[in-house]
């Protein structure tokens, strides 16, 4: 499988504090890669490097390369707004806009003018709510406020919103940590379906979730990539003692 994203020798600094050390990691296309590790290990920092979300933090400094389809996303010519249509993001807490369900999904296509007329926009909204597994639940109340949906539905709405601008990569930062097990299972099933069209990177603290949804898992510790590999192998036979200690719940 070719690499959709290729991170090479990435160093990330917040002011004087270095958060990532020489991270090199490939993200195969149409696969889900899980990033895991203890709090402060750098996994979310890495995720935020993949769509330049760290740019908004003052004093942030990045060395190394992040290649999306072999193009460096940190090259001066790159338009960050354009980049983020290619690399969408779903956050920990569902964060729908305080608008209708319809408007949440229509928002991206509107600002990027991805449609000709109202009929086409309606189609985009329906298609993406469908892909997010939400259409049947909301088709009769599309113009009701999104905030009236349950937490799990809101998160699927956020996924529908993220994929409505036809990204190629979806970044997910703990997308299920605020959801109950049933809503979590729905999102996990959705991740598996979305993998046909998108490359997915997910940060999760839930080891079983990483094991269930990903094909590749990378383990981080203190800003270093400790090991990355095929998910089944990493969870049954980790190569590094730090990984072994973390996933079996032992003192380091």
């Amino acid at each position, binding site marked *: 499988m070719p690499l959709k994203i290729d991170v090479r020798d990435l160093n990330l600094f917040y002011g004087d504090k270095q958060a990532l050390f020489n991270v090199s990691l490939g993200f195969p296309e149409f696969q889900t890669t899980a990033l895991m590790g203890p709090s402060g290990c750098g996994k979310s920092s890495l995720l935020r490097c993949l769509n330049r979300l760290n740019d908004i933090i003052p004093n942030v400094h990045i060395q190394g390369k992040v290649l999306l389809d072999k193009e460096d996303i940190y090259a001066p010519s790159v338009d960050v707004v354009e980049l983020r249509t290619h690399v969408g993001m779903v956050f920990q807490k569902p964060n729908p806009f305080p608008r209708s369900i319809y408007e949440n999904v229509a928002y991206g296509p509107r600002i990027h003018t991805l449609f000709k007329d109202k009929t086409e926009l309606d189609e985009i909204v329906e298609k993406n709510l469908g892909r997010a597994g939400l259409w049947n639940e909301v088709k009769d109340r599309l113009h009701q406020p999104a905030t009236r949906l349950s937490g799990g539905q809101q998160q699927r709405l956020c996924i529908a919103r993220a994929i409505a601008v036809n990204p190629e990569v979806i970044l997910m930062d703990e997308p299920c940590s605020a959801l109950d097990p049933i809503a979590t299972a729905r999102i996990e099933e959705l991740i598996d379906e979305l993998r046909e069209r998108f490359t997915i990177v997910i940060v999760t603290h839930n080891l079983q979730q990483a094991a269930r949804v990903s094909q590749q898992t990378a383990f981080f510790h203190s800003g270093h990539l400790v090991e990355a590999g095929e998910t089944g192998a990493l969870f049954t036979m980790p190569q590094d003692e730090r990984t072994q200690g973390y996933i079996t719940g*032992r003192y380091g």
Partner: protein
Amino acid sequence: MNKHIVKGYDEDLKGLRTLIRHMGLLTIEQIRKATQSILERNDVLAHEVIDSDHEINILETKVDELAVRILALRQPLASDLRMVVAALKISNQVERIADYAVNIAKRTLILDEMPPFPEVEGLSTLVKIPKLMIEGALTAFETYDVNLALEVWHMDHKVDEFYNTYLRKIFDEMIADPKNVGPCTQLLFAAKNIERIGDQAQNIAEAVYTMVTGKSFNESDILKNAPKV
């Protein structure tokens, strides 16, 4: 290996090891008694073996229950997962070994209903190595000792050698006098059971190998890398 942050988890895994050790000790004692019963034609001892078998079956059920409980409640990963899977396999194999001991004891009871027949030398020698193998394999399980597991695995060819030697003696007796065929058949079954115990001990060693290394046991690789004797 470092301790788990959750102490109860360590206790559960220790519980599993303790149950297997207990099963192993009882089973080795069953083999000892069964062999003694057939060598001495001792019915009382044979009955003891047959009657005690349920204790091992109960322990096997306990291992199953605790392992399933650990899988459900602790969701073990990496070395812990491999240990729980190995424990499930090993308890199953130990239980089979105990069944072989019962089968040997049953031969004693059948032999006792036949006219007296002299001992065919070799059975007491034959049983020594499988007993050592079980002890070694279970120690290797407790101590994560892959070298010991491999040593045990290689011992099985000795069992096969002794078994074939014993078999030839039995056949000689059968050929010498057709009256011997009945009792000799019983001894032959007993020897076959002992030989199978060696095979099961070898399976335990394979489970330990996989538990420690995380690799599937590949017989041809192991034989290729074996030191020449």
